[in-house]
């Protein structure tokens, strides 16, 4: 029987505050790795900020903002190998960028254009399930399958604090535990589920404590500390690969932006706390860390930002240049082999549209 291991309550940190809290270094991470992480953070930040602008310009639809979540996304993904699978929630919609997915693909997804349908197997990035926590069992199943096939790949699933209240989370986590599935459960605890604060979501002292009930380790990291997330995820991945089963990583941050473009959080959120959080946002913290370490030159940082902005400019131009979708696409993928009788639906539509 597995022994009960209490979850770690202390928030792990690597990045100090430049004053009383000292910086640490993560073993095995060289200068190139540190700069690669920086590039990922800037890419995600630029993506998020530009997407908000594109939404306001009417160029993409309702958009789930992930500002200040870049550290947990980049930190977690960098701890994976390319063969490992990522199961994003809508908050990690642009995670594919870190696997080489073109920005135009992600932007097309938010534009509701078929060009936004990426093939999960091309990037090992699963399709996004918008209903909360419904993808946790998928990740558990995929990870278990990798193990049964004797493959070394593992899976990482992102979900929010609110997701831990869903049945799918519980069933997926427990399933992963009993099958020793090589899975990392990465909980983005930004302390808000739309308008519902964490204290109305759970009476557990920490979300990592939930791991105890499933018989898996639970660790807590500062979710705005990209290196702390990287380090904790790397350990979880190592456990997964050696057959020790899943790990629950609680990445703690604070949602310093609306839930999505359709939300106005002023009715419920603590605006002072938001301001405070915006001052210690994750990209700036990491840049300050790299500067203290003497790794990041201002010219390099500017070049990275400029590269990311250019990528977005090209991405949105390419997404907007996509031709309008063909009406046949409405039906083409609802079934593998659409029943012949359903052809009448397409015929009727084409007649109405005057193109058939």
């Amino acid at each position, binding site marked *: 029987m597995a022994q009960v291991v209490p979850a770690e309550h202390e928030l792990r940190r690597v990045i100090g505050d430049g004053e009383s809290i000292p910086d640490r270094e993560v073993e095995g991470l060289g200068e190139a790795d540190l700069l690669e992480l920086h590039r990922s953070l800037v890419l995600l930040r630029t993506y998020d900020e530009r997407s908000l602008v594109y939404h306001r310009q009417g160029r993409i*639809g*309702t958009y789930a903002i992930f500002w200040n979540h870049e550290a947990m996304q980049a930190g977690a993904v960098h701890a994976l190998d390319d063969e490992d699978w990522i199961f994003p929630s809508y908050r990690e919609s642009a995670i594919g960028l870190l696997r080489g997915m073109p920005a135009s693909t992600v932007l097309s997804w938010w*534009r*509701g*254009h*078929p060009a936004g349908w990426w093939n999960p197997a091309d990037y090992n990035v699963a399709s996004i*399930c*918008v*209903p*909360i*926590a419904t993808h946790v069992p998928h990740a558990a199943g995929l990870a278990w399958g990798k193990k049964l096939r004797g493959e070394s790949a593992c899976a990482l699933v992102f979900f929010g604090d*609110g*997701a831990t*209240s*869903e*049945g*799918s989370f519980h069933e997926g986590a427990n399933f992963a535990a009993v099958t020793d599935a090589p899975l990392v459960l990465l909980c983005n605890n930004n302390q808000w*589920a*739309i*308008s*519902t604060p964490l204290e*109305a*979501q*759970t009476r557990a002292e920490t979300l990592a404590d939930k791991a105890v009930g499933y018989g898996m380790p639970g660790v807590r990291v500062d979710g705005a500390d990209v290196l702390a997330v990287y380090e904790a995820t790397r350990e979880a991945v190592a456990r997964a690969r050696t057959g020790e089963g899943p790990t629950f990583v609680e990445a703690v941050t604070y949602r310093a932006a609306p839930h999505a473009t359709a939300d106005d959080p002023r*009715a*419920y959120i603590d605006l002072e706390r938001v301001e405070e959080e915006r001052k210690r946002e994750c990209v700036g913290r990491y840049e300050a860390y790299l500067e203290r370490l003497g790794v990041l030159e201002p010219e390099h940082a500017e070049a990275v930002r400029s590269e990311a902005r250019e990528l977005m400019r090209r991405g949105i131009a390419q997404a907007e240049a996509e031709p*309008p*979708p063909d*009406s046949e*696409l*409405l*039906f083409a993928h*609802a079934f593998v082999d659409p029943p012949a009788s*359903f052809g009448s*639906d*397409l015929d*009727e*539509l084409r*007649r*109405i*549209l005057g193109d058939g």
Partner: protein
Amino acid sequence: MPELSYREAVRDALATAMRRDDEVFVMGEDIAEMGGSMGVTQGMLDEFGPERVRNTPISEMALVGAGIGAAMQGMRPVVEVMYEDFLTLACEQIVNQAAKHRYMSGGQVKVPLTVRTQGGAGWSPGAQHAQQLEAWFVHVPGLKVVFASTPADVRGLLYTSIYDDNPVVFFEHRTLYGIKEEVPDELEPIELGKARVHREGEDVTVVATGRLVHEALRAAEEAEGEGVSVEVVDPRTLQPLDEETLVASVKKTNRCVVAHEAVTRMGFGAEVAAVLQHQAFDWLDAPIERVGARFTPLPFAPVMEEWVVPHAADVLEAIRRTVGRNGH
């Protein structure tokens, strides 16, 4: 008579019942400070407090299950499920529990629970946030199913649903929250199982639900210009169905179109057509036409969504088919 929006009318029905009765309370995700994702419960927290306007964790199954527990104790909970697509997460509690407790206890347990939810296309929410799933629930013995299409109806029907001793799944349509209608000064409950004839006509009956009631009324206007007189009937309660009113209407007009936003195939319209052909077979002068969404998931792209769900033009075309004037 005051004019209320559909959204205000829902809120008024909830507040009226809650002022009258301590047994009535509302429970759901983001319904307190935020006032619900559709703004329906805005301001209710201030009037009724957090015990009666309860924000819950994101747990649809627990939300409906806890509502059943409260209802079994004599409360009259109104549970809000944010999107009707999320009813799927609570299906065990709705289908196997709420619908069955009275039957399995020999009538000794009652579950006066109302599950309010909303859905529908027209604002591009995509495949998992825009479905119309009412046909799933009319198929379950033990449940009543309501789908209100106007402010006056939603107000009177919701109030009645709260006081109905059966579990009621109450559908609202996302795109109707802003529409306005004059309503009685004092809330007048509307009996479940009674259709509303929106417009009388002689040539064709259109049986429509939800958003399609308004599309049918637009189509009827246009048909009028073509010399076709259309009667528009909204059953309002889908289960139990007001067969009498529908049959009487079709016996008068001899033709029928059934229109809903949910997919046509295997849908609620098929049941209506079956009832009508059985009870009014000898009165029918044309096959009953069905109008609904094409059989495919709803796309996120606004233009493609428009292609999937029906509009007034689709209803009008079906009307023309029944009177043999479409030329196809």
